[in-house]
């Protein structure tokens, strides 16, 4: 699957590429609007990551052009601006998602997989991973065809783990993912333990394997 990263910060791009490459994504980079335009004209991308502030123009202008060509599907805006207006404008212009810098790579990865799932597998509603089957539109999880009774948060958590499978995700990124980045008033991350503990219990009780491993109190890893 091909991803285009339109972002002028070399180092940030390098890190994004390194993280995403392990996910069987093929990443291409455009450091400015001009390059981005050329690439979009010549190739098809499954997902486009678009920075708003670019050296030769505004990312939103580029988005506007994409909208005219009906190519806005799969665009995730990455912006240093956290203003609600930029967010609304971006989403109005047809972007799929809006991510504010600084972000967690695991969060970015989860958003990309969500976008791609929505686009590529619009016909296919089920995602299978070993004994796990996830019904995406219905937000239901089955283990060996047995339905799991998960809360909304537990479901979100599982999907986050599945998107970042075999990667260490930090407690902070889990906390932000579960609470939404606007709610960062609590430094206390206790609440994620409860959700993870419950999720693990439900998975193992249903006969699934215990895939969620704690990594030295730093984070967790969903091993497949």
């Amino acid at each position, binding site marked *: 699957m091909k991803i285009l990263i339109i972002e002028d*910060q070399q*180092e*940030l791009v390098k*890190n*994004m590429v*390194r*993280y995403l490459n*392990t996910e069987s994504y093929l990443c291409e980079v455009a450091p400015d609007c001009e390059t981005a335009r050329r690439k979009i004209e010549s190739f098809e991308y499954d997902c486009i990551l678009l920075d708003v502030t670019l050296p030769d123009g505004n990312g939103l202008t580029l988005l506007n052009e994409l909208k005219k060509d009906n190519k806005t599907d799969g665009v995730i805006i990455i912006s*240093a*601006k*956290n*203003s*609600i207006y930029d967010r609304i404008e971006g989403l109005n212009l047809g972007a799929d998602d809006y991510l504010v*810098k*600084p*972000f*967690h*790579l*695991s969060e970015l990865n989860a958003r990309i997989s969500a976008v791609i799932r929505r686009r590529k597998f619009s016909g296919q509603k089920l995602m299978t991973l070993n004994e796990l089957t996830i019904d995406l539109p219905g937000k239901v999880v089955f283990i060996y065809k047995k339905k799991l009774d998960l809360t909304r948060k537990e479901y979100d958590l599982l999907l986050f783990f599945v998107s970042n499978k075999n*990667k*260490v995700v*930090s*407690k*902070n*990124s889990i906390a932000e993912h579960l*609470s939404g980045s606007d*709610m*960062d*008033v*609590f*430094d*206390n991350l*206790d*609440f994620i333990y*409860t959700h993870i503990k419950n999720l693990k219990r439900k998975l193992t009780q249903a006969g699934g394997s215990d895939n969620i491993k704690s*990594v*030295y*109190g*730093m*984070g967790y890893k969903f091993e497949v």
Partner: protein
Amino acid sequence: MKLLTKTLKSYLIYSSLLLLVTVPLFYFVVKRVLLHSVDKSLKTQLRDIRSNLNANISTADLQVWSRLDKDIHLEKSGTYFNDRIYTRYIKTRENDDDQVPYRQIESCISVNGQYYKLTISTSLVENEDLLASIVLVEALLLVALMSGMLWINRNISRKLWAPFYETLSKIQGYEFNKHASIDLKKTNTTEFMDLNRCLENLLNKNYDTYLVQKEFTENASHELQTPLAIFQSQLELLMQTSPLTEEQAGLINSLETNNKRLARLNRSLLLLTKIENEEYQPTEFIDISELVKKFIQSYQYYSQKKELKIMEEYNDPLMIQANKTLIEILIGNLISNAVRHNIPGGRLWIALQGGVLSIKNSGAEEGLETDKIYQRFYKKGAEKDGLGLGLAIVQRICNISHFSIQYQHPEGMHEFKINFFPVS
């Protein structure tokens, strides 16, 4: 004390002193002068009598004369004595307390070898009346003079100081974030011209500095986002490396937590700048009680964990027109504070009545320092979790939205009251 009152006060003190001193002084001087002239006339009279006395006058003549002229009294005297002059108070009628002052001269005259004591009297009543009228008129004149001077002075001062008061009122109404250049009225008084010019320079310079600083904060915050993002992503890559020891994991965890804190700090500062730049316009109608309920719900995990007893009273529904982002931050910050700084098993009491939202919670025994709580980076004691920006943001939001906010510490509870429609 007002400037005008101050100058007038000096004048008033001076004129009252002058009045107090002048009127008695005047009284004594005039009295002396009058007495002197009375004495002079008595002496002249005596001299006339002496020169008119001759040997042909009999004792019987003297007695007749003395009886006829009331002002003259004669009686025999054994010895010779020198002339005496004095004031005496004499009753005009018998059984009358009213005594009248008389000026008398006593002299010894010799008629036919016999010494007589001659007393010539003249009433001082007229003189005293005259004196009283003169002093009264004089006093009235002085009072009129003083009050007239005061009045004129006050009017002149008022006119003279008018440009000053004008400037003062302009400066009082001045707000840094609102205005670009202040327009002070022209005046032809050199001192006030200088004052206005200096003020204008000062304000313009300050305003420029303010703009630069504002821009700097915003730019700095924006510029910081990128390195923070790079740092964050590198930490995550570092997490994926193997082998990873427990020690390394601990370090990475701490780095990530601190980086998150930096990012939050940066975001909060940026938010403050944006609020001050008035980038948030009141665009929506917001149901306050709905919003409060939403936040109570989202902090449920923490309030349940602390076993807080939450009481909610929504007596009057409240819809306000405001910026939703700001109001969410405002209420979110206050409720999260009330939960975060609460004690286990504590209470949280929320009331919405008559346009006032009150959020009251148990917590530290000691009250917060009212004059400091809204300062940036103000933290109480050893508190390390918070950024110290939450209440600063709350206050800025209240200011910009024209709400009033008040902190109270009743019976060991901490209470924040927001009045959405304060009477200004």
